[in-house]
């Protein structure tokens, strides 16, 4: 079986891990994987899909960079009888155009993080600063939304500052530095919520350099569960992270297998778990497990 895989790019460690795992999974099942990197551009993804169709692959995996704009090319794939599985993000298209979507629920992730914070501060007043992902990207929008939903109605919790850190460590650190300055050297901040772990790691460094203790003076909660955040948790510098599993391809291949061999229609949405990890979950052990996965 030949499967084309259109990946968004390699903009973060998490994505690199997803690519690695997809390749591993394909190899394990003897699938010939055609990999195309779109360098963060939707037009490149559409081009890649069209090339896959022209090439005559048996199935297509796509991690869509954005939710909209897929109808036409998916229709072409359908016309050519090539099943398409979406990875890690859903899209805004008629459901019959694709076989299934293997994703986590981004809003839910934000929600889990928010709930954890609400439970942890337990009614004490708390000013939260937020490090957003890239402005306009769907994880940034949804993780913000989910988090705000969890905080809704809790008057003790307030998001006092929110800026974009572009999902990167450098920007996460820089933005956190200015938050600390702007909020009285950090004395007004009780928690930081970062849309991904990389920004959280940057923020932790900024907090330390400002002479405060991350994890104690300022709570740190973030999303993704990449190995480095577990190191920070082990050191007591980060408090919680919500896992976004990079192994989306496994369930996708299973569904494809079943569909192609037995014609079995999978459900339209295969949701992956959004597991919460805290300092209590033996972070060093998780770190060791995750280390080799290409994060």
């Amino acid at each position: 079986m030949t499967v084309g895989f259109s990946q968004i790019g390699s903009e973060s460690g998490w994505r690199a891990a997803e690519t690695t795992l997809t390749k591993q999974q394909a190899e394990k099942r003897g699938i010939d994987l055609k990999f195309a990197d779109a360098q963060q551009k939707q037009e490149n993804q559409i081009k890649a899909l069209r090339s896959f169709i022209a090439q005559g692959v048996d199935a297509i995996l796509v991690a869509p960079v954005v939710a909209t704009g897929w109808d036409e090319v998916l229709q072409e794939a359908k016309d050519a009888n090539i099943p398409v599985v979406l990875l890690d993000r859903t899209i805004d298209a008629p459901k019959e155009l694709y076989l299934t979507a293997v994703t986590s629920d981004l809003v839910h992730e934000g929600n889990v993080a928010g709930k954890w914070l609400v439970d942890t501060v337990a009614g004490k007043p708390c000013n939260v600063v937020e490090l957003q992902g890239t402005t306009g990207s769907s994880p940034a929008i949804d993780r913000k939304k989910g988090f705000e939903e969890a905080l809704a109605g809790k008057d003790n919790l307030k998001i006092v500052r929110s800026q974009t850190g572009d999902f990167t460590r450098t920007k996460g650190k820089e933005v956190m530095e200015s938050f600390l300055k702007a909020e009285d050297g950090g004395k007004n901040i009780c928690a930081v919520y970062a849309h991904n772990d990389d920004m959280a790691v940057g923020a932790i460094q900024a907090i330390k350099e400002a002479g405060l203790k991350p994890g104690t003076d300022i709570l740190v909660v973030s999303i993704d569960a990449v190995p480095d955040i577990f190191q920070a948790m082990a050191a007591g510098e980060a408090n919680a992270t919500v896992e976004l599993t990079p192994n989306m391809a496994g369930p996708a291949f299973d569904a494809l297998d079943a569909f192609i061999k037995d014609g079995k229609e999978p459900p339209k949405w295969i949701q992956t778990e959004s597991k919460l990890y805290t300092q209590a979950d033996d972070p060093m052990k998780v770190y060791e497990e995750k280390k080799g996965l290409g994060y």
Partner: protein
Amino acid sequence: MTGTFKAYAVRLFPQVAALAIILFMVSLAFPGFFKLSFQNDRLYGSLIDILNRGAPVALLAIGMTVVIATKGIDLSVGAVMAICGAVAAASITAGHSLAFTLAVTISTGVLCGLWNGVLVAVLDIQPIIATLVLMVAGRGIAQLITEGAILTFNHPGLIFIGSGSLFGLPMPVVIWLGFGLIVALLVRRTALGMLIEAVGVNRRASRLSGVSTGVLLIAAYMLSGLCAALAGIIAAADIRGADANNAGLWLELDAILAVVVGGTSLLGGRFSIAASLLGAMIIQSINTGILLSGFPPEFNLIIKAAIIVLILVIQSPRAQSAFIWLSRARATEPTKGQEAK
């Protein structure tokens, strides 16, 4: 001596004024802006943050200034930063010494510059395209080294470069100030500055006058590579890891912007390192100011665009000549009177 000082003052006036105005505006939006304190053996405050965060762009701007003075442009600096950060992280995690790591990293940057320089000077490829090659491929090379992940390290020596302090200033600040001073002295105390400007203004005429145009061009790109290497080390040391995907992303545009805000023409010729460094600080002040002001991030780009346009309009030759014209209109009256006598 006072003459040269006056010339400097005149040259740098627009940049200094623009910087002062921006800092003033930021302080209106954020009152504690000018507050400085001494913490952990170093000065601490928003102003220091600007100096510190502006380090990569400032370093890139040094090399970029010289490249632009030769009528070139270097789009690859961001990618070279990523490569060098990756090399540094890979080397230090492989257990090499700090000195070795720095040497290898800086050589890598210089080598990248050499590649660009050869394309431009020997193969005569247009600079924007010649450096576009490395801009595209370079990030790939960096990712090849880190395999797409963030390569973290714990070597205290390397980390010191990113977040240590010297003379009460953060290391990155010491590095860019020091390096800027060295390069500025190098080009102005020797004939390099003039020769570079000559090449930028008229390469043919310079060659016919015996200037080694090829060597100078290559050297300019090598300097730019060196600057990118330093910036790459600082960026990696700052976050204790090499982020091949994001290190230096789009920083080439900021560096070019810094040079232009500094008043060096993109058509080559006259240049000033000091002015470019001021330009870098202006850009960083805008960035930090936006962060401190608390606007929603959707507005970042618009604010940045508006301020840049404003600065450039004030600096544009037209506005300047209008200014000169105004001041002359006032000054000519007495001259006329003298002529009449």
